[in-house]
């Protein structure tokens, strides 16, 4: 059971190998697909590289742009605050008087112009509150002199300092986050110089919101550090950092400016640092590189999908392409097969691609040539046959000559001189027409004359045992015919029809033209034959044609054969529509009809003049 299946499998594999894999169709399909996919893959790879690089670059650019913008905004904001501070300074300190409702109104107007001012306060050098707006009671536990902004103002006179964001704890009623602007100013009051410290507290919310809104990708953020000490001014996760749940590489940002990539807690981050003028802060933008990698992965996945889709498309396209190439070739193959089977009258339509068109044309030429050669062979065979037949025809039966001469001798011995003359004359004429200068076609007139001489001789030989008559229309006489067509027919009529007949025999030869067909009739009243047998005379094999012969032939050659030869000669010369026809009834005689196309013979007379 197993061996045959194995063998079958092997055969199947072989067939597949031959029919599929090595076929042009699959070669075209696969090579086309592989080529395109390699091309697409290469382009995809190159583009992917380029795009990843440019995505990374633009991430760097956009990150630094964002940080730049924030920094500009912050600078702008700080500038605005500075001028606001100057305005308050002028209103409050220029005249050296800060009491009175006029100053209060001015300050309130100024504060009303901005919604980010928490409070304004003026302190003496020892921390005593001189004035504040909005007016509020200073907490006894405020510890003004210990505050950072106070000490900073004391340290550097006439310099506007910005504090880090801190909790304002000067007044009751809440702990707002503020950034303090403070400056130590020398004021002339009542002719006395006095050192005062002007404090303006700004709500930190604006800066906080500005920073918390910054989005650097999904996870990215920005924070602010103080350039001097590296304190965190703002950080979205400041509490986590204080509690040690998060780390921030502040040192790295502190010493650098511009872009750099760092690794913190196993994550690669792009850090962009930008200083903010006037306030001494640095904005640090952080974005996560693995988000960029996500972008890259997405591009990857997309490219894979594209390549897969294009592979399918290309396969389909390749198959169609291959099929369109293969189809005309298959047509050629089919045609060749039918030629192989012997069908030569085929013709390939000349169409399709150039090569196929050429192939079709060559194929057609080849088939045409074969057809031509075969036609030639047929022609050659036919003419060979014709010549054979003619040669046979042209042979004068030696028996006939021998018998005739014997009859002449016998007549001479019996001194029947007149008959001898008639006989010799007929014989001579007979031979002259038989030769006819080797021509195959002679006029009907000559043919009939030949028949006449033949019948005369035979009549003399057989002692006038039969009579004959030859009738021909003039039109028929002028026609041409194959020579010696009638003689075998006459011989047949005499030998088989009349020789054994008890009655006086009669042979009648007629020639006439009917519908363009020259008809020669040989009619006898001899033994005849059955109509079925007569019908069989020309058909079938030579053997079967011999079977219905009426009598054994004395000529040593079946008269059936002779009749057939004539029939063949006519058909070889004029085509299948022409030839012999037999009509017979047993004991009633026989009529043989020769049908030949009527063709006029012009030079007949000239021929006769030439010996």
């Amino acid at each position: 059971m197993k061996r045959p299946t194995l063998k079958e499998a092997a055969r199947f594999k072989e067939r597949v190998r031959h029919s599929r894999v090595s076929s042009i169709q699959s070669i075209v399909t696969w090579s086309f697909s592989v080529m395109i996919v390699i091309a697409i893959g290469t382009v995809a790879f190159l583009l992917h590289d380029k795009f990843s690089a440019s995505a990374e670059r633009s991430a760097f650019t956009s990150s630094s742009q964002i940080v730049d913008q924030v920094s500009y905004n912050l600078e702008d904001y700080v500038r605005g605050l500075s001028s606001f501070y100057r305005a308050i300074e002028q209103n409050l300190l220029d005249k050296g008087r800060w009491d009175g409702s006029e100053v209060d109104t001015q300050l309130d107007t100024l504060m009303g112009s901005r919604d980010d001012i928490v409070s304004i306060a003026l302190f003496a050098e020892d921390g005593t509150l001189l004035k504040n707006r909005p007016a509020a009671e200073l907490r006894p536990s405020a510890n003004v002199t210990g505050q950072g902004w106070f000490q900073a103002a004391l340290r550097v006179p006439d310099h506007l300092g910005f504090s880090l964001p801190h909790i304002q704890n000067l007044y009751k009623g809440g702990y707002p986050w503020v950034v303090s602007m403070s400056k130590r100013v020398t004021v002339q009051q009542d002719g006395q110089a006095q050192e005062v410290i002007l404090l303006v507290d700004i709500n930190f919310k604006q800066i906080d919101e500005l920073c918390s809104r910054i989005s650097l990708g999904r996870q990215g953020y920005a924070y602010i550090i103080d350039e001097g000490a590296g304190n965190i001014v703002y950080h979205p996760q400041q509490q986590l950092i204080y509690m040690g749940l998060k780390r921030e590489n502040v040192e790295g940002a502190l010493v650098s400016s511009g872009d750099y990539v760092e690794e913190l807690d196993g994550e690669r981050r792009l850090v962009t640092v930008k200083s903010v003028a006037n306030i001494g802060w640095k904005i640090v933008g952080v974005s996560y590189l693995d988000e960029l990698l996500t972008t890259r992965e997405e591009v990857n996945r997309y490219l894979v999908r594209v390549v897969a889709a294009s592979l399918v498309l290309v396969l389909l396209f390749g198959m169609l392409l291959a099929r369109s190439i293969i189809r005309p070739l298959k047509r050629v193959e089919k045609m060749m097969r039918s030629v192989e089977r012997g069908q030569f009258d085929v013709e390939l339509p000349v169409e399709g691609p150039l090569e196929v068109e050429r192939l079709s044309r060559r194929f057609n030429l080849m088939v045409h040539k074969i057809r031509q050669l075969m036609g030639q062979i047929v022609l050659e065979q036919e003419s060979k046959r014709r010549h054979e037949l003619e040669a046979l025809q042209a042979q004068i039966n030696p028996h006939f000559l021998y018998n005739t001469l014997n009859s002449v001798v016998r007549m001479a011995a019996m001194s029947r001189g007149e008959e001898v003359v008639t006989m010799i004359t007929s014989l001579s004429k007979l031979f002259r027409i038989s030769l006819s200068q080797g021509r195959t076609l002679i006029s009907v007139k000559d043919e009939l004359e030949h028949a006449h001489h033949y019948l005369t001789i035979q009549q003399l030989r057989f002692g006038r045992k039969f009579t004959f008559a030859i009738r021909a229309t003039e039109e028929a006489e002028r026609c041409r015919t194959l020579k010696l067509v009638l003689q075998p027919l006459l011989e047949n009529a005499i030998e088989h029809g009349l020789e054994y007949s008890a009655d006086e025999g009669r042979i009648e030869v007629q020639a006439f033209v009917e519908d363009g067909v020259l008809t020669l009739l040989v009619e006898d009243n001899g033994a005849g034959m059955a109509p079925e047998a007569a019908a069989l005379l020309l058909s079938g094999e030579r053997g079967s044609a011999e079977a219905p012969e009426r009598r054994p032939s004395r000529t040593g050659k079946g008269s059936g054969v002779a009749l057939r030869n004539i029939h063949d000669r006519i058909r070889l010369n004029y085509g299948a529509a022409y030839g012999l026809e037999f009509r017979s009834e047993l004991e009633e005689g026989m009529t043989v009809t020769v049908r030949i196309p009527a063709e006029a013979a012009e030079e007949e007379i000239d021929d006769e003049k030439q010996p």
Partner: protein
Amino acid sequence: MKSSLERLGRRSFARIRRLRGLSAGSPDSAWLSARLPAALLLLPLLAAAGCSGSAAPAAPPPPRLAALIAPQSDGALAGAIRLGAEAAAKEFGYRLDYVEKEAGRPGEGQAEAASRALKEGAEALLLDPDGELQLAEVVKLAHAAGAAVITLSDAYPVDGVASAVTIDNREAGRQAGAAMAELLGGYGRVAVLGADSSAPGYEERHAGVLEELARHPAITVTEGYSCGSSSDGCSEAARQLMDEADGIVALQEQGVLSSARESLRRGASSEVKIVGFGSETEQLELLQDGVIDRLVVQSGFNAGYLGMRQADRLLRGEKPEARVALATKAVSPDSMFWMDNQKLLFPFVK
């Protein structure tokens, strides 16, 4: 009235966004960088085959939803928890709903809010439970909906809580006890103003305070007073204790406030040392003024942040820690305005 800064900020952001759009590539605009190679590569082929379906890059999945259930008392701690949870949700890529209970239904507040959140499709519920029964009900609802429950700040022995982010109450109590011992110089009478709540956290705190004070043999401890969240009861208790003790350790916010007010009322406030728990604004003001001497504080921000981090682990299929301990810290009037304590005590920028 909008400030000039905000206006400027908005304008420049819009400009940046435009710029980024033009340069076709930024970490968060993946589709832009993905679209161009597509167009270059296969536009004719794809267009011919109508294969545009594969051309659109996969949209990022919508963020998963977590819900933070508001507690009954909407104080500073609750706000800080919310801030922290929101910070973590942004960091880990979640959408966080803050679900407040509906007004006028005090009894079933958290459970009702939880069922609303679950209806919205929340996969994790974060809450500072109002009580054990409330929590049990929330857990039941969440389990029915296939969601996880994470408790913040307070822990109750309820089964089915995936993770509890809570302060170590015993350690907090120890810190309070140590602070009191330090204030008294290791000598004196200390009264513990207990809580009327049955929450296990307060008992732990209590135990921690006693444990620490017991290490100082010269300190005697008075127990037995407790007060709840009503100021009347607490004032009464505080008044009595003021006469008996050199220092009061109050376990609950109301107790701290009542003691401080009593101390203020008597004037010359620093006589009786007050140590308490909590970081509500009023407590902080009293701390600054020196009426309260020490406050043991926890970071609500951290509680929210760590709770959300646990939720993230849980939703990613990892096993969360059953218990996450939050650090506590004793703050004095001097140290309350230190840089690192400012953020802890005042998480809001108003």
